[in-house]
């Protein structure tokens, strides 16, 4: 069926590369000049009438050149280049296959050493990734793992990460959206200690091999297999550097009887990864107090302050998909637990405290951002069943409303310096990177292989 796709000026490049990725390189687009959100009603009308209408007519009625022949691409095991370390790095960078840091050359021998750490053959398909519609396989997981500087024994984690990336619930296709959110990987299970992940002081800092290289792997894989590239499919206005893996402090969790993030997300396997995209976050320093009543108002206030336009994921597009994350240092978690709070009770208390006036909420998603069509009131959305009744308990614009739909939408993790009273709040990207947890499958001979690898 003939189509015309309305594309603002800044998105023409992304439209072209995405269309090619989807197999329709000739897909026509109709330009909407500039960015519509900064135009007056008259300017918008003039631009659409003068430029867009003609383009729409052309899109729908004029013959479009044929797609042409696809360029042949290498087979997985093909040697694509031979050279020394610098030459390989230059070749990969010039082909957009590298992030700019030196890569470890992915030789067949190194790739094979990674494949040993999975019981699944290299050609096993883990999913198909948008926007390039490329096949994610155990083989190309190994290739990108080598390049990122990972160790072979990280393979089970890398595979689980790609399974999560390919899960439609996560929404990898949104990874190039303009707010430039970055994925946080959270690791749970005995692998944290077996592979030497940092889960204490500096938990979010680069510098520990496993945390750092697996974080880098994530973005290399997004680049090389999903196909997210600067100035093309990645439209992050500012973007972020990739995050290192966050490993939870499971010793602390066990001591206080709290569940892990993976368990909270419904995966009870011994080892698991959870991925979620966060638009940003910030530290909550020097939490003072020894009771929930003295500590929680400050924590709740900080969570609220990190969330602004992201409230559209509470009430607008993907309503109910807003999942902020509170990261507590062990001493804070232990203090709250000592006062009798389990995780569910903590989330309920935070749900009651993380509130803002209804008029302010409506301003974030209406007057200031125009992110909910028609700028409906919270009352109207609650009446239509889009959001729970808690958003419309009175007509008072000063009434306090929550920032998420349910207490369980708040996520709580424990890591970082065990003896500092600091926390960290992450603002979430809603449906565009929804929390997704996958179990990590170890090879049958895991224990023996790890023992042997350690002895070498």
């Amino acid at each position, binding site marked *: 069926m003939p189509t015309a796709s309305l594309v603002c000026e800044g998105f023409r490049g992304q439209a072209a590369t995405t269309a090619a990725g989807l197999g329709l390189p000739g897909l026509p687009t109709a330009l909407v000049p500039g960015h*519509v959100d900064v135009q007056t009603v008259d300017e918008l009308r003039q631009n659409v009438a003068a430029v867009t209408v003609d383009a*729409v007519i052309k899109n729908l009625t004029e013959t479009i050149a044929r797609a042409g022949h696809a360029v042949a691409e290498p087979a997985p095991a093909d040697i694509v280049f031979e050279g020394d370390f610098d030459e390989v790095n230059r070749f990969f960078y010039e082909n957009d296959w590298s992030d700019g840091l030196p890569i470890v050359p992915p030789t067949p021998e190194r790739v094979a050493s990674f494949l040993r750490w999975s019981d699944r053959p290299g050609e096993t398909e883990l999913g198909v990734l948008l926007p390039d*519609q490329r096949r994610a396989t155990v083989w190309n997981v190994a290739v990108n793992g080598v390049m990122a500087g990972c160790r072979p024994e990280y393979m089970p984690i890398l595979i689980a990460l790609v399974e999560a990336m390919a899960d439609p619930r996560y929404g990898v296709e949104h990874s190039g959206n303009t707010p430039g959110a970055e994925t946080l990987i959270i690791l749970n299970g005995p692998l944290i200690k077996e592979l030497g992940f940092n889960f204490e002081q500096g938990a979010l800092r680069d510098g520990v091999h496993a945390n750092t290289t697996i974080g880098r792997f994530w973005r290399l894989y997004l680049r090389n297999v999903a196909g997210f590239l600067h100035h093309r499919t990645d439209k992050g206005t500012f973007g972020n550097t990739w995050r290192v893996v966050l490993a939870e402090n499971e010793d602390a969790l066990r001591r206080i009887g709290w569940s892990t993030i993976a368990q909270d997300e419904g995966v009870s396997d011994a080892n698991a990864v959870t991925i979620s995209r966060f638009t940003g976050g910030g530290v909550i320093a020097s939490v003072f107090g020894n009771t929930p009543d003295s500590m929680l108002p400050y924590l709740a206030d900080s969570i609220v302050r990190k969330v602004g336009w992201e409230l559209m994921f509470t009430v607008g597009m993907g309503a109910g998909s807003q999942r902020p994350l509170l990261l507590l240092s062990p001493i804070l978690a232990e203090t709250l637990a000592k006062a009798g709070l389990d995780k569910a009770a903590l989330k309920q208390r935070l749900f009651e405290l993380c509130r803002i006036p209804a008029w302010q909420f409506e301003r974030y998603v209406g007057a200031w951002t125009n992110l909910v069509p028609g700028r409906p009131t919270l009352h109207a959305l609650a009446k239509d069943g889009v959001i729970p009744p808690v958003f419309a308990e009175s007509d008072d614009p000063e009434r306090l409303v929550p920032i998420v739909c349910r207490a369980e939408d708040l996520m709580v993790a424990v890591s970082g310096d065990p003896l500092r009273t600091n926390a960290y709040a992450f603002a979430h990207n809603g449906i565009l990177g929804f929390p997704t947890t996958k179990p990590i499958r170890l090879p049958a001979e895991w224990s023996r292989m790890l023992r042997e690898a350690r002895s070498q």
Partner: protein
Amino acid sequence: MIGPDGREVYRVVWPRGGKTVQAADVAPRLSSLEGKVIGQLWDDLFRGDEIFPILEEELQRRFPTVRFVRYDTFGSTHGRDEQRVLAELPGRLRQYEVDAVISGMAC
């Protein structure tokens, strides 16, 4: 391996994955918009609710017999109901005898 000049030489493989779709031609275009039915698809973002009425008005002026099926008939193509809306789309387009589609907003 070591090259003839004593440098260590690496033979390296491709880091990407095979494409799962082949490039295809887009559908044949219409000879004119006169008498045709145009479906509107919107992702509920970036002033589509203002832009589609302008397009309607201007296209109607140039092609008086063109008709439109509005975006709210189909539902939002982005967000909570995205997968359902897209799955239902072929049937809905047939149901409303749509000849062509205008889709927005990429912004």
